[in-house]
């Protein structure tokens, strides 16, 4: 981040206002009340309360951190000031909301909301005082975090996060393991009817702290121990852990059951697409906003070639249609690639965006309705088979997806470090120079488009066989945007980043289904926060990580220098 100016009282005021407004905002959009149904710790704290606490807490932390640069003690004072301001803003909102009926404009400003915000306090004055005091307290608490040494801070943040996460997961765990024998005692120990039990929460907290502390101080031991071993045993350990990882991955659906497997297959389909778009955007730097088109082409090819419904044509098997779907998507990638080769940046984005829409509209059109079903889509797409084994439900499709991911990830990984991957990166960095270095721009870009499109085609084909029927509305612009977002959140150009991004942006919302209304809001907020705090993504490529945390150099100045001589 750039050089920070000293933190003044004005900044504290500003931060406080922001925190207060954030609380009001999440209240008015209804998140607080909706999330208040979910208890994290039984009868003690709800998810709604946590998201109310979050703004003063985090801004208190950041305020104190910035103020600390000058004087140690000043940080907490700033936090306090900031928190009091935030509390006052919320207090004002509570007083206004309880005395005037805001519901005509803000439907969520219901009495229930104010119950949550005031923690059940009746009189407005008491509630206001509570809010101010609470804001101050929370912000100071945030500020105190700056005083802790980093290992302790990390441990505490991890512990709180895992308590909240496990609290959120309660329902899913119940669905998944409810029928298992071993689950009952575990469940009774950790959970109450709604939320974690106190003992459960404390155990999770303590265990996480211990793990985190161990990792900070002794985390490098396994690596060190390994580096002392001979190359052969190092290699066999690597292979061993790979095999172990593979076995775990293979056993996952058996262990988890249908619902989590369903989520995993959805995530997996996005991972395949993400890996493909990562080649186009992350490696070659070609911003493609119409990526869903290739996904649709893959899905429709699979649908048309295999369906046994009223649109049936070939009635091929899944395995015969799969290469056809991939090949057709690949060709579509080349066909799209050719006209847009000369375009860069924004222009390319707009044209590809248009291409995505064209495909969607063509699919919807009456013109092709006799062959691809228009808005009614294609029904009765048979499931994939191997011999007698049918990829019927999510637990079986999981393996299909896993196979797809393994294949695609392998290809992406090999290409990344090869001559072609370097050429892509060179084109991303500076097209003109890449060309002057002997890189054939047309071929190189087309390879990126084609590879990316083929991956999407594979993903689409699996998607069609998984659902058994496909409809045009599954291939909206939003899919392209989701895929692009997950690459960015994970860390652009990074393979593990794609996986992380897919789990965060596709998996998490599935777990919070009841809050689907706020999905897009959280998405947006997450992206904005990410870009400010961790622009390189959650699991960045090694080089990118350095790039963002190095002080910015005078690249700007360099590129501005006139070309004339």
């Amino acid at each position: 981040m750039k050089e920070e100016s000293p933190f003044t009282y004005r900044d504290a005021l500003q931060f406080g206002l922001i925190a207060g407004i954030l609380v009001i905002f999440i209240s008015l959009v209804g998140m607080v009340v909706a999330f208040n149904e979910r208890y994290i710790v039984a009868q003690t704290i709800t998810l709604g309360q946590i998201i109310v606490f979050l703004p003063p807490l985090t801004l208190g932390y950041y305020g104190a951190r910035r103020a600390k640069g000058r004087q140690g003690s000043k940080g907490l004072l700033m936090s306090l000031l900031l928190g009091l301001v935030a509390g006052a803003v919320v207090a004002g909102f509570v007083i206004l909301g309880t005395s005037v009926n805001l519901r005509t404009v803000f439907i969520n400003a219901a009495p229930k909301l104010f119950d949550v915000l005031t923690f059940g306090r009746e009189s407005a004055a008491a509630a206001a005082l509570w809010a101010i005091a609470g804001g101050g307290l929370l912000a100071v608490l945030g500020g105190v975090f700056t005083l802790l040494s980093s290992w302790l801070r990390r441990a505490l943040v991890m512990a709180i996060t895992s308590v909240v996460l496990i609290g959120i997961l309660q329902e899913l765990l119940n669905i998944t393991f409810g029928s298992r024998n071993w689950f009952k005692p575990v469940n009774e120990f950790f959970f109450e009817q709604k939320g974690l039990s106190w003992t459960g929460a404390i155990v999770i907290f303590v265990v996480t702290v211990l793990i985190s502390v161990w990792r900070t101080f002794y985390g490098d031991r396994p690596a060190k121990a390994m580096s002392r071993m001979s190359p052969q045993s190092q290699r066999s350990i690597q292979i061993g852990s790979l095999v172990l990882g593979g076995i775990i991955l293979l056993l996952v659906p058996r262990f988890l059951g249908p619902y989590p497997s369903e989520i995993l297959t959805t995530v997996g389909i996005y991972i395949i697409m993400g890996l493909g778009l990562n080649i186009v955007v992350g490696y070659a730097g070609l911003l493609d906003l119409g990526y869903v088109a290739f996904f649709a082409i893959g899905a429709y090819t699979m649908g048309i070639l295999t369906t046994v419904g009223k649109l049936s044509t070939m009635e091929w098997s899944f395995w015969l249609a799969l290469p056809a779907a991939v090949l057709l998507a690949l060709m579509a990638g080349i066909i799209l690639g050719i006209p847009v080769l000369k375009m860069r940046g924004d222009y390319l984005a707009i044209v590809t965006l248009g291409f995505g829409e064209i495909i969607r509209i063509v699919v919807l059109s009456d013109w092709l309705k006799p062959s691809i079903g228009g808005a009614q889509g294609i029904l009765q797409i048979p499931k994939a088979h191997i011999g007698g084994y049918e990829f019927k439900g999510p637990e079986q499709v999981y393996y299909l997806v896993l196979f797809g991911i393994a294949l695609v990830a392998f290809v992406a990984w090999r290409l990344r470090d090869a001559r072609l991957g370097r050429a892509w990166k060179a084109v991303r960095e500076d097209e003109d120079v890449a060309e002057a270095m002997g890189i054939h721009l047309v071929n190189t870009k087309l390879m990126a488009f084609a590879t990316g499109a083929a991956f999407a085609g594979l993903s689409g084909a699996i998607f069609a066989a998984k659902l058994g029927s496909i409809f045009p509305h599954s291939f909206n612009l939003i899919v392209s945007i989701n895929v692009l977002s997950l690459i960015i959140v994970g860390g652009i150009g990074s393979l593990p980043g794609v996986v992380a991004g897919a789990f965060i942006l596709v998996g998490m919302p599935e777990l919070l289904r009841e809050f689907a209304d706020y999905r897009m809001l959280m998405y947006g907020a997450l992206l904005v926060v990410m870009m400010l705090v961790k622009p390189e993504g959650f699991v960045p490529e090694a080089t990118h990580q350095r790039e963002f945390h190095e002080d910015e150099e005078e690249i700007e100045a360099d590129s501005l220098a006139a070309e004339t001589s």
Partner: protein
Amino acid sequence: MAILEVINVTKQFGGLTAVSDLSISIADKAIYSVIGPNGAGKTTLFNCATGFYRVTSGDIVLDGDSLVGLRPDVIARRGISRTYQNIRLFQNLTAVENVLVGHHPRMSAGWFGAVFNTPHTRQEEKEALGKARELLQFVGLNGVDKELAKNLPYGAQRRLEIARALASEPKLLFLDEPTAGMNPSETSGMTEFIKQLRDTLGITILLIEHDMRVVMQISDLISVLDYGKKIAEGTPDEIRNNPRVIEAYLGRGAATQHEAQAA
């Protein structure tokens, strides 16, 4: 024998003539310098010869084959490589990756070779990596293989750019103001280095340079451009005393004064 011949080349941008009816001939293994005031058309000449601009008229011939109308990447394969006045490295690639990209036209692995990691690909990668390390050492960059290009100091970036250009095994190397922004000791180091390039690698060098000491010290032949026209050509000594050159650089007054002094 001439390796590169520029024959009556004119390049116009709309109404502006950047290079006008220019002819030069560069001998094999020579260091040939092009000098001239800002806007004289020197970089335009580079861009024409490397295929970025298409000449309006005239011909550019490398080893007997015309380069006019060829794409930049084809010209690079034919054996012309260049550096840039304002360094244009692949900033977010490491030093060794930059050099490997330079080696791109001398490699052949494609999509399938990469995915299946064929013996040919493996062999090629290994050789390329060895060569890249060698080149980094040659230009005096040791132990920075894995450093991002943008994080290298200025002088090292200049050297890295030359290493990248050399990686394509060029016959002809275009250097666009290689000593720009360097202090006197760095400049003399670079001057020596350029000479060494020609002497040890046998590469022909076309040099654009503003620093007269550098030009006079290492050039075999110098052309002076002014407003896109060649106003003089000759050895360093001839150029130093040419009144038209002095006029172009320092103005008419200076030229007459110089003549008076000479007389």
